[in-house]
């Protein structure tokens, strides 16, 4: 929204394992309705802290991501819809 300083945001699938970041924005329109609903259910929202914990063994897909106090698995293609700030 009106963050004083917006460091360069990257997409969640580019974030290195073990790096914390906060969600800058989610491109809800690029997701199917039920997928967007599920991401919201998992707590994906602006300002929430995320951290990739594990990558799938084949093609580094899917991703296990800590969101708040939960860990969720999503595919790389869905992680692309999430932009994160490396600050914090």
């Amino acid at each position: 929204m009106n963050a004083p300083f917006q460091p360069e945001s990257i997409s969640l699938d580019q974030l290195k394992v073990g790096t914390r970041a906060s969600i800058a924005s989610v491109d809800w329109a690029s997701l199917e309705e039920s997928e967007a609903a599920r991401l919201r259910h998992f707590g994906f929202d602006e300002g929430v802290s995320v951290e990739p914990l594990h990558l799938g063994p084949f093609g580094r897909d899917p991703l296990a991501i800590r969101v708040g106090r939960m860990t969720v698995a999503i595919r790389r293609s869905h992680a692309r819809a999430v932009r994160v700030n490396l600050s914090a």
Partner: protein
Amino acid sequence: MNPLPLVAVAGSPNAGKSALFNALTGARQKVGNYPGVTVERHSGRLTLADGRPLELVDLPGAYSLDPASPDEAVTRDVLLGKQKGERQPDALVIVVDASNLDNHLRFALQLIELGLPTIVALNMIDLARRDGLELDAKRLEAELGIPVIETVAVRKRGIAELRSALDDMLSAPARALTERAPSELIQLQRRARDIAKSAVVSESPVRRWTHLLDGVLLHPVVGPVILAAVLFIMFQAVFAWSEVPIGWIESGMALLAEGATNVIPDGLLRSLVVDGVIGGVGAVVVFLPQILILFLFILLLEASGYMVRAAFLMDKLMHGAGLSGRAFIPLLSSFACAVPGIMATRTIDNPKDRLTTILVAPLMTCSARLPVYTLIIAAFIPDRSVGPGIGLQGLVMFGLYVTGVAGALLAALALRRTITRGGGGGFMMELPKYQMPRAKDVVIGLYQRAMIFLKRAGTIILGTTILLWALASFPPAKPGESQIEASIAGKIANGIEVVVRPIGFNRDISLALLPAMAAREVAVSAIATVYSIDASDEEAAQAPLAERLQGRWSLATALAFLVWFVFAPQCISTIAVTRRETNSWRWPLFMVGYLFALAYIAAGATYWTAVALGL
């Protein structure tokens, strides 16, 4: 008579809702289905301190009232009083995971807005403390404005308090439901985070144990190796542990048949009871030990939290076939038997993913095909070595398994592009914390699975085996005529023969195909029966079946027969369970149609190729 007050237990997935439900109701539960959907309805009775009974219903886990799966749609409809066959609950117990408040409170807030009398069970409070999280339940109660009870469902802690809170709540005069516009989900989520923050007294880094275990079990190299080992043990167990109980069931059935033979005079009734009922049902019940062992493993993997990790590891490979990681375990289970495999697809959220998985599950080579493969391979494939330690017979067997898997993957790809096109096929799952499975919950789950198999599939299977028996027994043969040739089944075989003649099948095979619908391995005994009746002298009748086959079938026919069994849906139980799990005749009929078509084409292609090669 007023119906019992209905109390619904609701909560997000992984909140420990079912454990709490089991702790409240005990083993006396009723498992049914909501009409029109394949979502299970679990209900039980609870008696309050003053002796008043109430009905408790365990709603499917949901993240919110905006459904993203059929289960969640049922939860929403029940809570809003819109679910067919269910009255609106009189009160709610909301289960939240104490260590995941900022997420679980969102659904709780949404439910509290409904205005029903409500209690929150702050569950798994012990695990939260173990993780270094201190919560202020009183503060939470003040923020939410409703009673909050700390519980540890698996240790039955807080259950008595929960019951007395229920008692108080149901004794209080009912409030009028307030009609309020529901809040936006995102607003509720933000409020949930604020409340969670205010209720937390102190916290340390989250979920240490789960992180340590995931570091190993989801490791890119070690993880898949451990998964392979777990699966290997599971399959060893399915076959090794089931041998003895299968022996018991077989001798039990034999005793029963013997007893019936002695009691009932020779005639149609004896034949119906011995060959139709005992023989037919016995052929299916024999699979119960394998199904139970398989489900024991599946329940343990699910309850411990490892199942989701297995899906995580396999998702990328399953994605290649248009499926999700969730399809992995059901498909793998289908190697033992497609019936539990198809039942296990209930863990797949996405309806189209689930349907695709159900439709291709019968292509996994189940254990009932083994007797058929073993017989034909022993008879026609020379027992010679094609390389160090590699026998030709084993190679053909392996090839049949690979053909099944390849067929399943190709069929899934084709279905995903046509009939079950669209609808995501995404993979979004919560990775819950690891937990020690509790014996009572596993036993309850196992008992419910066994009952589903025996009751639901059993009734359809009993009906069809009696039908098959009637087809094979009427009209009775005249002296000197073989019963199977004279029967309606024999006449049908004449029709089948016309159809299967082009793909190299002879009359014996045509006769075996119909009884093999009861169960694939029956094909072996059916062929054996035909040959023992037709054998001209005693000596020939004594020769092993494999030897007798050699003179009668060409190699091309034998190969075509093997390939037929890779694809053909020769199993009433599978069709019955598909009917149950898809809640319509449309999909089982489609499955039967496309699999027979595949079987016909593949067997034909094999036969014509073999003939062209001069085999």
